[in-house]
C-alpha cells in the first residue's frame, strides 16, 4: 500500500484549511443574524472531508447529511453559491430554498445533502446503482454520522448494497454525539460500528482522526480497496466537533461532554497535526500566503452580500414541479 504523497497531503491540508476558514467565518458572521437558518458547522471535523475530497476522483459522487458544509466544500462545491445559500439568496446553490441543510453542486458531483437523519443514505445507494447500470466510472461516497447507525434504513441500505455489490463507500464520522447525547445512551457499550458493518459482509475500516496521517492513509486504503476489488466499503472515523451541534457557538459550558475528551481533541487538532507534519517534511512549506488570500476571498464574498442583499424575486411555484 503506497502512502499518500507529499503533494496530496499538501492539497488535503489546503482543503481543510479552506473549510476551517470558511466555517470560522460563518461562525463569526452568523451572529449578525443574516444567515437565518439552522447551521451545523464542521469545525474540528474538516480533515475527513478534506481527505476524501482530495483522494477521491472527480467522477465520484458525494451525498451527505445535515453537517455537510465540509463535504460540499471539499468536493469543490462553489463557494460563492454556498455562502449565498446560507444567506437565503436566489444566487445560492439551492436558490436560497434549501439553506445550510440542503446543499447541492451537480457540476462537482455533489449530489445533495439533507437533514433527516439517514434519509440520504438510500438515495446514495440508488445513485450507486445508477452508476453500476450505466457502467459509469467512480463510486458514491455516502457521508453519515454516528446516529445514522440507529435508523433502520441504514441496514436496509447495507443489505441492498451487498446484495447488488454496488460501488459505495460509506464514510461514518463518529463524533460520539447526536446533538447532546453520547453514544452510550443510544448504542450498546463496546459496540464498534465498523465491526458491526463488517459482519454484514462489507469490508470495513477504522481510523482515529487524532492519528491524522494514519487516518489519511487509511482513507486512501479504502479508496484503493474499492477501486481494485470493485466492492462496497465502509470506514468509521472517530473525531470530534468543536462547536455546538447546531449554531455558531461553543457550548461546553453545558457540561454534556467530558472535559478530558474536549482537551484531548483540541490538543490533537488534525489540521495542525497535518501542518506540523508537512513542515517537518519540507522546512520551506509555508501556507501563509494561501491562507491570507483565501481569507480575503471569503471576506469579500460576505462584504459584497452585506453591501447589496436585496435578493432577486423568484416564483416559488415554479420549483414545486418540473415542467414536462
Amino acid at each position, binding site marked *: 500500500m503506497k502512502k499518500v504523497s507529499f503533494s496530496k497531503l499538501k492539497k488535503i491540508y489546503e482543503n481543510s484549511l479552506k473549510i476551517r476558514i470558511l466555517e470560522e467565518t460563518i461562525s463569526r458572521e452568523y451572529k449578525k443574524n443574516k444567515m437565518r437558518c439552522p447551521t451545523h458547522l464542521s469545525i474540528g471535523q474538516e480533515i475527513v472531508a478534506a481527505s476524501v475530497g482530495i483522494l477521491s476522483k472527480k467522477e465520484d459522487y458525494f451525498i451527505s447529511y445535515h453537517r455537510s458544509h465540509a463535504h460540499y466544500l471539499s468536493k469543490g462545491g462553489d463557494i460563492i453559491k454556498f455562502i449565498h445559500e446560507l444567506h437565503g439568496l436566489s444566487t445560492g446553490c439551492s436558490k436560497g430554498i434549501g439553506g445550510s441543510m440542503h446543499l447541492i453542486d451537480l457540476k462537482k458531483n455533489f449530489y445533495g445533502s439533507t437533514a433527516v437523519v439517514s*434519509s440520504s443514505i*438510500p438515495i446514495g445507494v*440508488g445513485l450507486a446503482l445508477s452508476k453500476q447500470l450505466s457502467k459509469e466510472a467512480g463510486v458514491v461516497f455516502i457521508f453519515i454520522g454516528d446516529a445514522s447507525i440507529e435508523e433502520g434504513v441504514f441496514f436496509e441500505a447495507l*443489505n441492498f448494497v451487498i*446484495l447488488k455489490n454496488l460501488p459505495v463507500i460509506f464514510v461514518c464520522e463518529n463524533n460520539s454525539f447526536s446533538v447532546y447525547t453520547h453514544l452510550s445512551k443510544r448504542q450498546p457499550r463496546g459496540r464498534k460500528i465498523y465491526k458491526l458493518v463488517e459482519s454484514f459482509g462489507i469490508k470495513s475500516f477504522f481510523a482515529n482522526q487524532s492519528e491524522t496521517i494514519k487516518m489519511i492513509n487509511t482513507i486512501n486504503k479504502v479508496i484503493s480497496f474499492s477501486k481494485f476489488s470493485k466492492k462496497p466499503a465502509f470506514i468509521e472515523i472517530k473525531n470530534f466537533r468543536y462547536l455546538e451541534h447546531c449554531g455558531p457557538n461553543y457550548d461546553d459550558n453545558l457540561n454534556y461532554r467530558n472535559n478530558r475528551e474536549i482537551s484531548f481533541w483540541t490538543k490533537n487538532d488534525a489540521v495542525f497535526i497535518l501542518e506540523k507534519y508537512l513542515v517537518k517534511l519540507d522546512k520551506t512549506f509555508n501556507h501563509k500566503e494561501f491562507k491570507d488570500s483565501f481569507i480575503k476571498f471569503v471576506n469579500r464574498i460576505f462584504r459584497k452580500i452585506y453591501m447589496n442583499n436585496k435578493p432577486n424575486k423568484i416564483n416559488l411555484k415554479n420549483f414545486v414541479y418540473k415542467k414536462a
Partner: protein
Amino acid sequence: MIKFKDSINLALDHSLRSNNRLICFGLGVNDPSRFFETTKKLLEKYGENRVFETPTSENAMTGIGIGLAINNYPCVMMHQRLDFFLLAMDQLVNNAAKWHFMYGGKKSVPITIRLIIGKGWGQGPTHSQSLQSWFAHIPGLKVVMPSLPSNAYSLLIQSIKDPNPVIFIEHRWLHEISEKKINKKKIKIGDCQLLSKGKDLTVITYSLSTIEIMNLKKIINKSGINFDHIDLLSIKPIDYKSIKKSLLKTKNLLILDSISNPICSVGSEIISLISRDKDIKLKNTPSMLTLPDISTPTSFYYTKNYYISKKDIIREIMRLTNKQIKIIIDRDLHDVPNPKFKGPF
C-alpha cells in the same frame, strides 16, 4: 377484450421499450404471480437489470428509486398493498416530493409508485387502506387513479414520462375489468374524463367508484335521470375547470368517494373547492358517499354494511334528484369483485 391488468402490462412494456433507461422493481415483479400478472414477460424482455425483485425494505427501496431517478434512470416502483408503503413516508414526503423544490429546481425525481388498494375477501384493517388524500396533501406529488383499461394504459405511460414523482393507485378490483379494445389516445395528467352527460346531476367518481356508477347507469337512466359522470382519473392536479363547468349546468352534486375514509378526504376537498367558488350555486347541499370513519373489518358479515352498496348510491341519487328509481336487488357477494374471485389477495 382487454383487461385492466393487461393494459398495465402493455403500458409497462411500452415504456420499457421506448425508454431504455427505465427501471421497474418491487416485491413480486418477477415471481410466478408477476405482480397480479401486470409484469408478465417483462423480465424475459428487458432482463433482471431493469426489472428486479427487491428485499422487503420499503423505505430504503424508495430512496434507492429516488437515487436512480435523479441520475436519469426514471423508475417504476410497486407495492402489492398501499398499506406496506406506509414504511416509506420519510423517503416519499421528505425526499421525493421535495427534491426538485429544495435544491432550487436542480434535479427532479421521475419516479412512478404503483400502489394497490385491497378490498374484500377479508383484507381487513392492514390490507385495504387507500390514502390518496394523504398524497394529495403533499406539495410536489401527483396522484393518478385510473378506472378502465384505456385510461390506465395512457395514464401509466404519462406518469412514467412525467419528470415528477407520481403516485399511481390501482384498485385491486379493477384488474379484471375489461374493455373491447384499448384506446391509446393520450390523456394528460390533470384531465378528467366525462363518461356521460345529463342535466339532472353531476356524479364525480374515480378508480373503483367509476365502475360502481357505470354498473348502475342503465337503471338510473331508465328512471329518467341523466347525469354528467366525471371520472377524475387524476386526483392531483384535479380538473377543477371541468367540475365547475358541469356544476354550473347541473347545480347538483354527488361525489362517490367510496374507497376512502371521510375526514380530510378527496371528496371533502372537492366540496371545499366548490363551496368557496362564488359562481357555483347548487340546488341541494352537495353530497358525498364515503366509508365510515372506521378501519376495515375482516369479517364477511361485518364488511357488508361497511362498504358503500348499490342501494346506498341509488338512495342518494333519488334524494338528490327527487325522482324514483326502481330499487334493484343486489345478489352479488359484497366481498368479491366477481364470482370467480377466491382471494386471497
